[in-house]
């Protein structure tokens, strides 16, 4: 997971650490999530819908194209088979009409007719003539069926009502699958005779299997009871039962979808062949037919997957970048706002201090002069001298009190001057600096607190510090912030060491060491970041050190920190002898 952490954008943690008065304006994580969600939906939804529509449309159109082709196949084959049967029936009818009864009864003549027939048409195996009583009067062919009585057979009885018939396929006496065509010829004396010829199903089989059909197609004939009439490729032998329902009668070629024995979808195309007991059945494997569609479909799905991935990556990357930029800008805005607020606050404090000092100075000056005048009177006129020893004592006592008043006035004057000094250096001016004086001045603001909290302050300033140029006000702020921080880190009885030494041409270095609570190692890198604070609950803004760092940079200085938890912290400030050119422009 630590691998993922390095990809985690900066804003991810925002809002968790910033509590208190300086909260973030936005919840970046939620913005990020919403933006990704919305943009993803807006881009992916149309893509998915279009793909789904296209998918269904393509599937349907390929399916209907296949259905149409199969229907066309079916109706063509039906016509072919129908023509085949029609041809043979017509041939028999022609023979029956063209020959007299006597001719047909004669086996020799009949053999001649059969020979002609076999030469003209394929498939005729034999030829027999049956009289009205159902007796086969003459027969020519590979079997000896002459004299056979058909009067009890159903087909013969049917012949009384119709002129011709085609039988189901059967094995019969011949013991090979065949069907027979009968044609009736009515004679002048009112009787009739029937011409009967067997036709090998090989003919039909050739016709059906010679077709070039796609999709693992199987074309064969069944009778109306669903018994298979011609050899099949995948649906069992002749006389087996069709595994599907027998289609209901229809003039037209019909198609429907069924499941085969393996549970796969198949198209079953059926057509009733007119004037025959046969139904043409074409079974096509749907899976095989839709194979081109499957290839297209895989391409389509790949395209979709790649598009979605690319879109999501772009959305993800762009949103993260935008939200992060927003976050960084907001951070910068907040930092600027706080810095402004901070310097405004300092300026107001400065103005307030100056105002107070000025107001206080005038009455102080009056006290000073009045007390001074009283003292002068006692000094020059000595009005109590007349009272002798007692007067002298009184004079001395009054002079002591006046000196005390004058001393107090002088102390007040120092305080107001210090305040005025502090206020005066709010503006940026580069001047020659006495670092020792600045350190003393800053400490003078804090020495009451130090006394109160029993903190020992040791100042060790080397005597060989060269005078250097810098900004007095900024230096005051820098030292004030760092020493304030050190005070905050220490308990009662702490110890603060300030050590200033020269670095020769490299400048001046000041080390401020406290023995306070220290800074955790993980936090050391962050203490100069704006808004980093371990004291947010006590009202810390996390800006003090960040501002200090900024001021030091402006002065061309550097700061190093070393700290141990529980032992204390050292800030080492390095200042150049001359500030960088940019800060003097102001």
């Amino acid at each position, binding site marked *: 997971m630590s691998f993922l952490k390095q990809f985690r954008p900066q804003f991810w943690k925002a809002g968790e650490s910033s509590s208190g008065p300086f909260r973030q304006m936005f919840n970046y994580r939620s913005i990020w999530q919403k933006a990704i969600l919305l943009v993803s939906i807006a881009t992916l939804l149309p893509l998915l819908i279009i793909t789904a529509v296209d998918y269904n449309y393509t599937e349907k159109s390929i399916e209907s194209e296949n259905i149409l082709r199969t229907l066309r196949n079916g109706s063509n084959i039906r016509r072919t088979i129908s023509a085949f049967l029609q041809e043979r029936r017509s041939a028999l009818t022609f023979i029956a009409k063209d020959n007299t009864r006597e001719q047909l009864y004669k086996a020799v003549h009949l053999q001649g007719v059969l020979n002609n027939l076999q030469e003209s048409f394929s498939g005729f195996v034999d030829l027999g003539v049956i009289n009205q009583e159902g007796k086969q009067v003459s027969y020519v062919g590979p079997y000896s069926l002459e004299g056979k009585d058909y009067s009890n057979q159903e087909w013969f009885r049917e012949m009384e009502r119709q002129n011709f018939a085609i039988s189901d396929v059967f094995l019969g006496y011949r013991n090979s699958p065949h069907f027979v065509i009968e044609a009736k010829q009515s004679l002048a004396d009112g009787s009739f005779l029937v011409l009967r010829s067997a036709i090998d199903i090989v003919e039909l089989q050739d016709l059906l299997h010679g077709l070039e059909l796609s999709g693992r197609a199987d074309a064969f004939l069944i009778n109306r009871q669903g018994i298979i009439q011609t050899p099949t490729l995948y649906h069992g032998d002749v006389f087996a039962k069709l595994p599907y329902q027998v289609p209901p009668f229809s003039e037209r070629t019909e198609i429907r979808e069924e499941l085969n024995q393996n549970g796969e979808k198949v198209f079953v195309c059926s057509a009733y062949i007119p004037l025959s007991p046969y139904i043409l059945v074409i079974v096509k494997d749907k899976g095989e037919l839709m194979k081109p569609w499957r290839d297209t479909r895989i391409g389509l799905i790949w395209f979709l997957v790649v598009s979605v991935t690319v879109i999501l990556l772009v959305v993800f990357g762009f949103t993260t970048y935008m939200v992060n930029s927003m976050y960084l800008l907001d951070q910068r805005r907040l930092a600027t706002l706080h810095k402004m607020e901070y310097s405004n606050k300092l300026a107001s404090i400065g103005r307030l201090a100056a105002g107070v*000092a000025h107001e206080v100075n005038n009455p102080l000056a009056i006290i000073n002069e*009045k007390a001074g005048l009283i003292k002068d009177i006692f000094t020059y006129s000595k009005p109590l001298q007349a009272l002798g020893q007692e007067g002298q004592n009184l004079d001395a006592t009054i002079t002591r009190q006046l000196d005390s008043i004058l001393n107090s006035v002088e102390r007040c004057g120092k305080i107001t001057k210090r305040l005025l000094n502090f206020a005066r250096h709010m503006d940026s001016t580069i001047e020659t600096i006495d670092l020792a004086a600045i350190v003393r001045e800053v400490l003078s603001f804090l020495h009451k607190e130090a006394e109160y909290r029993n903190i020992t302050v040791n100042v060790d300033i080397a005597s060989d510090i060269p005078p250097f140029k810098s900004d007095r006000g900024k230096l005051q702020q820098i030292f004030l912030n760092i020493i304030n921080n050190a005070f905050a880190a220490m308990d009662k009885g702490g110890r603060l060491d300030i050590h200033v030494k020269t670095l020769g041409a490299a400048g001046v270095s000041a080390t401020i060491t406290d023995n306070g609570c220290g800074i955790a190692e993980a936090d050391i890198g962050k203490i100069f970041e704006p808004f980093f604070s371990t004291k947010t609950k006590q009202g810390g803004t996390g800006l003090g050190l960040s501002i200090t760092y900024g001021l030091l940079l402006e002065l061309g200085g550097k700061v190093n920190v070393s700290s141990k938890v529980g032992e204390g912290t050292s800030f080492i400030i390095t200042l150049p002898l001359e500030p960088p050119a940019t800060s003097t422009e102001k």
Partner: protein
Amino acid sequence: MRILLVDDEAEFVSTLAERLTMRGYQADYSITAGNALDLAAKHLYDVAVLDMKMPGTSGLELQAKLAEKHPAMRFIFLTGHGSEDDYSAGSRQAAHYLVKPVDINTLIAKINQTVFANDR
């Protein structure tokens, strides 16, 4: 040595004049700029100690008027205000710039310095 003291704080400036008189100086005081100009017209003052900020006329304006009429006059500014602008302006025009409250001995030392420098 004749000294002119100008300050809008009457209590302060009168007491200061009295103390200077006790020390043998001829010290006159005024609490307005107009009165100060009148006094300057009547007497010849070696040094004028002026407040920086007075109602109506500022110390700097008064100093400019006085210096115009009395080129020999020297100036010391005495103020309760410690603003940087006043400080740099005052330092340019006057010999010294002192912040209230000031010890009378310090003031006398500065006055002597100024007059001494004037004499040289």
